[in-house]
């Protein structure tokens, strides 16, 4: 990765949640070496941790389904990826999800939910409501985390299910966990 994109480790504010750092640790322990994303505010800290990590290649995507294909390519080459996105991005992925399903290749997606907890923006609601059903319809296993402790434990188990169990797994991170978006 170009050296100019290697950032300093994030400065974590006092009282900031600690789960992003813990997720980064968990994913590294699972030997994740690639991270692809369309950014979301809920993923901002975890994105920074990965950008500061010299062992991980980060890809900023123009649209979320690119990351599904990148992860499949990485697996063909023997490497593990994680894909970060918001619930609205799941809708962009549906046909491309047939790729890891057909390959029987691991896929690990961390999805920050919108549209379900104190949501200001009505445009987020339809895809949020469709997220779980559309993932299940294409054959992806869906897990949901509502608290930071759950999130860490579930992500560790999802990584094992994905990479050892060769399943396609999405962890939905509740909007309540991420917090109300500040405009």
């Amino acid at each position, binding site marked *: 990765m170009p050296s100019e994109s290697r950032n300093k480790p994030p400065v974590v504010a006092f009282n900031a949640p600690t789960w992003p750092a813990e997720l980064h640790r968990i994913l590294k322990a699972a030997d994740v070496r690639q991270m692809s994303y369309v950014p979301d505010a809920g993923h901002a800290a975890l994105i920074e941790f990965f950008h500061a990590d010299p062992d991980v*290649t980060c890809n900023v995507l123009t649209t979320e389904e690119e990351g599904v294909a990148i992860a499949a390519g*990485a697996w*063909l*080459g023997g*490497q593990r990826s994680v894909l970060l996105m918001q619930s609205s991005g799941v809708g962009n992925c549906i*046909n*491309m999800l047939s790729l890891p399903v057909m390959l029987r290749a691991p896929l690990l997606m961390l999805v920050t939910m919108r549209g379900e907890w104190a949501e200001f923006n009505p445009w987020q609601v339809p895809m949020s409501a469709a997220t779980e059903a559309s993932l299940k319809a294409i054959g992806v296993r869906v897990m949901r985390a509502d608290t930071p402790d759950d999130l860490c434990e579930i992500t560790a188990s999802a990584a094992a299910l994905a990479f050892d169990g060769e399943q396609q797994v999405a962890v939905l991170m509740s909007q309540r966990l991420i917090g109300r978006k500040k405009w």
Partner: protein
Amino acid sequence: MSRRDAVAALLRDRRDLLVVCGLGSPAYDAHAAGDHDCNFYLWGAMGGAAMIGLGLAQAQPDRRVLVLTGDGEQLMGLGGLVTIAVAKPKNLTVVVIDNGHYGETGMQRSATGLGLDLAAIGSAAGFSDAREVGDLAGVTALAQTMHSPANGPRLYVLKVRAENEPRSLPPRDAVYLKNRFRAALGIGLA
């Protein structure tokens, strides 16, 4: 030029090239040039071929990766050219076999058949080399440069005739293709 001749020239001296083939005619062309464990043929995931190539290139930085795809497939993944350009892999080449039409669905004209310059898009995005190639001499020269070091990703648009060649169908079993590809790379079964 003939697409079959172009792809055969491209892959004649493939050495240790890893090849990802977009669905449809490019996959048949690669298969006709000679099936190989290091060919990964797609029968779906339209728009994803170049992204599979990117993930593979990043996972295998010491290997050269070729994405061989068609104009329709690459147009569906146009944003992926941007993603590749900003990722700047040095070991990835994207070759678009451009006949200006959708060959699988009745030869309807694609955007490149309606005037779009795909190589110019690659150049604007920041590919280290992006150009059209119109004859077999150019393809043969290109085939050699694929094995030499590069400053970044490369995009070549090969202008071919819009003809349906005799079908040369690769395997459709994705699990089989995955396993033989990974075995060729020395990656054990999990």
